[in-house]
């Protein structure tokens, strides 16, 4: 479990200690304050650990640099250093509950292919990390992986990583029952069962009475549900690991946001440490209600808000939503409500 990230001079993010809980971590904030960057930097580091075959400083120096560059797509690594800080290096340190899996490294504005590792994890067997971007990726399965691996493409590497996971076979054995339970609401919303064509590796939906439907024919929002469903059915998001999801609500109507909120909480409750960034008050309210139910009464949750201030961006964080002062999405909703109410009050 990721307990804390100490981040200094990284892109738009405020220098701070970001503390997380083992369950659901929700990040809010206006556009451009660094929500996605926070998800991506955490994902990049944990994905390096999950995929690493060795944990020597030498191998990690290059692996961190390559992954950060691949996931965040700067022209070169050093561009990720906060630009207002002169030549001060960017420092990133992740503290995990299993202390031997923690790490710390830094890089300077001139860095391109390596970072300086100050503390490397000493343990292996790191948990898998998954990043879901704002758009669906199921229609990219499986052709995107060889395309990305064989050509210089400026797509974010997290897309490639996640597409490669979508093509995995479904789990079998004792886990199948749990998978079926978690898939049920998603498949109900989609209107059929997801299956993978063994010959082509493409994902289809088997719709009762209609047969197989190609993924590109499915609505964009439903494809996002299918993407989550595949990651659950392959066991990637079943009971361990990390899920980073940028704007789960994008392309979804409120009815589907309700479904996705329930699945996010169920995934977190099953043992996956979940991090989401959102602009949706509807999603936040759904999560708040789910977390207040008896089913999820013990699920840890934490709220982080990136807030624009006169001297830059600050982070507010707490286990209680009531402690978060800056909720621009709520303020704007209320202001809109006021404007509407005032519109015709004095006809």
């Amino acid at each position, binding site marked *: 479990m990721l307990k804390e990230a100490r981040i200094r001079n990284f892109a738009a993010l405020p220098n701070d200690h970001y503390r997380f809980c083992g369950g659901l971590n929700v990040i809010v904030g206006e556009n451009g304050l660094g929500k996605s960057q926070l998800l991506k930097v955490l994902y990049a580091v944990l994905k390096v650990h999950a995929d690493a075959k060795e944990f020597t400083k030498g191998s990690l120096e290059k692996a961190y640099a390559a992954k950060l560059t691949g996931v965040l797509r700067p022209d070169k690594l050093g561009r990720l250093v906060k630009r207002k800080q002169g030549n001060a290096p960017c420092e990133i340190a992740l503290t995990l509950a299993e202390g031997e899996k923690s790490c710390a490294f830094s890089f300077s504005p001139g860095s391109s292919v390596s970072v300086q590792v100050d503390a490397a994890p000493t343990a292996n067997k790191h948990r898998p990390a998954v990043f879901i971007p704002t758009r669906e990726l199921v229609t990219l399965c499986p052709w995107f992986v060889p395309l990305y691996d064989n050509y210089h493409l400026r797509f974010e590497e997290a897309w490639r990583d996640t597409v490669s996971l979508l093509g995995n076979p479904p789990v079998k054995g004792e886990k199948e029952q749990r998978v079926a339970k978690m898939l049920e609401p998603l498949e109900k919303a989609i209107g059929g069962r997801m299956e993978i064509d063994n010959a082509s590796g493409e994902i289809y939906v088997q719709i009762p009475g209609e047969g197989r439907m190609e993924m590109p024919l499915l609505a964009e929002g439903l494809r996002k549900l299918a993407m989550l469903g595949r990651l659950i059915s392959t066991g990637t998001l079943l009971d361990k690991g990390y899920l980073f999801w940028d704007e789960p609500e994008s392309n979804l109507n409120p009815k589907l946001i309700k479904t996705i909120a329930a699945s996010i909480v169920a995934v977190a409750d099953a043992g996956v440490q979940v991090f989401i960034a959102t602009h949706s008050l509807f999603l936040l309210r759904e999560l708040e209600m789910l977390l207040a139910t008896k089913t999820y009464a013990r699920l840890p949750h934490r709220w982080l808000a990136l807030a624009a201030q006169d001297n830059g961006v600050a982070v507010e964080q707490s286990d209680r939503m009531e402690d978060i002062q800056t909720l621009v999405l709520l303020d704007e909703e*209320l202001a809109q409500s006021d404007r509407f109410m005032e519109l015709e*009050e004095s006809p």
Partner: protein
Amino acid sequence: MIQIQEGQLTFVFSDSVMACKYDDWSFYRNQFQNGCYRDNKAMDLLCHSGSVAWMIEIKDYRCHHRTKAVDLADEIAIKVRDTLAGLAAAKTQANDRDEKLFAKKMLGATRLRVVCHIEQPAKSSRLRPQVIEPDKLKDRLRRELKAIDPHPIVMDKKNTAVAVPWQVR
């Protein structure tokens, strides 16, 4: 000055207006509620002010069970419809002379206004400062009552910006 108590709320009407509790009318209780088909509903208060007839529904969720938000606009729309039907009948059929006169005044107005006075439930959260969102309710009411009042008012006692001929304490 007419004062009408409704639960914990006191409605104080200007001197120039007439106001009453419609759901206390003997016509409504004894003649109309189940004497025109059945189970007719009633708005809480009526007010006649100049050329405007006001129909007021009061929802004090601080002390009463909350109607589901999705049903609230429907409930009010039905009450408005039934109350107008009741007033049309009371104008000629009410046994109580004052009620008959009040109905005549209301139906002589050139404008009908619908008001939902709502006091929010005590339960709220950081994400939901108002459990019943007044703009959403107003939007639903506007759609459901466009033939009667295309500009229904949703207000609470803190809202002093709305031009109505009464105050609420």
